[in-house]
């Protein structure tokens, strides 16, 4: 039996595709170009632009709605809304197809970049630590726990919206 040189995609069923890497986490393009995704300038630029825009949006909201009595409800809302939107984004991208081309552009620009810069963990942790350090243990613990628990619920809700958006009314999977 002759095997075509170079290995066409979707090759021999019994032998797998010789062009695909063994490790499923390795990007196929990494093998082709020799440059991992996180070292490619165009993809790094997407994360930079998205991140800068996300940080601008967060700071704009924090300037408009400052912290009340040492507790930033704005940061709490930003983290919860960002967790919801990242759930919607990643679930709908995953359901539309493999992480390549336009889908990867959207994931890096809007997900890793914008939502990553919009939401923040360092401010959450520092505000919580300061509240506890000031003796306001209940407020600090409540603020931290509320963010993580409501954030997880928001992520779940976002994923559910991503699933629903992929299956419009009347259409079954």
């Amino acid at each position: 039996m002759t095997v075509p040189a170079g290995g066409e995609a979707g090759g021999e069923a019994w032998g797998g595709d010789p062009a695909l890497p063994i490790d499923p986490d390795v990007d196929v393009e990494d093998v082709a170009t020799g440059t991992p995704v996180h070292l490619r300038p165009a993809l790094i630029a997407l994360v930079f632009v998205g991140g800068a825009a996300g940080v601008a949006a967060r700071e704009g909201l924090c300037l408009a709605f400052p912290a009340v009595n040492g507790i930033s409800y704005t940061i709490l809302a930003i983290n919860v809304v960002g967790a919801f939107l990242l759930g919607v984004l990643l679930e709908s991208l995953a359901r539309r197809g493999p992480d390549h081309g336009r889908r990867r552009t959207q994931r890096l620009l809007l997900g890793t970049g914008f939502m990553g810069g919009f939401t923040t963990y360092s401010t959450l942790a520092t505000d919580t630590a300061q509240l506890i350090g000031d003796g306001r243990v209940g407020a600090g613990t409540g603020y931290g726990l509320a963010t993580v628990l409501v954030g997880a619920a928001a992520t779940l809700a976002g994923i559910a919206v991503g699933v629903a958006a992929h299956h419009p009314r009347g259409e079954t999977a």
Partner: protein
Amino acid sequence: MTGVTFVLLCLAGGLGATARFMLDAAIRTRVTATLPWGTIIINLTGSFLLGLLTGIATAHALPDAWKLVVGTGFLGGYTTFSTASFETVRLMQERRYGAAFANGLGVLGGATAAAGLGLWCGGLL
């Protein structure tokens, strides 16, 4: 805040996000583990550094621009809540409840302790 400070804050945020992207990928290619260590390490180190910066700023009356550009901008863009929350939910969906608990509430406790340690060290400097 001046316009220049705001622009620098946004650029620092872009740099922070870029650092997170590259460090997360670098950790992920080296560590195959049951927990998303890339995001965990990023959020713990970022929380410590923001605590340290806040502690130094309080003790030495550092100019506001420093806290805004390095803290709100760079460290805010470097750390992320949305990805951490997504990874926790993914662990829950895989019925790995212990790992989900560690990634959600464990990291919250760890990051708060790291920020507290940073605040304390910053006050001593």
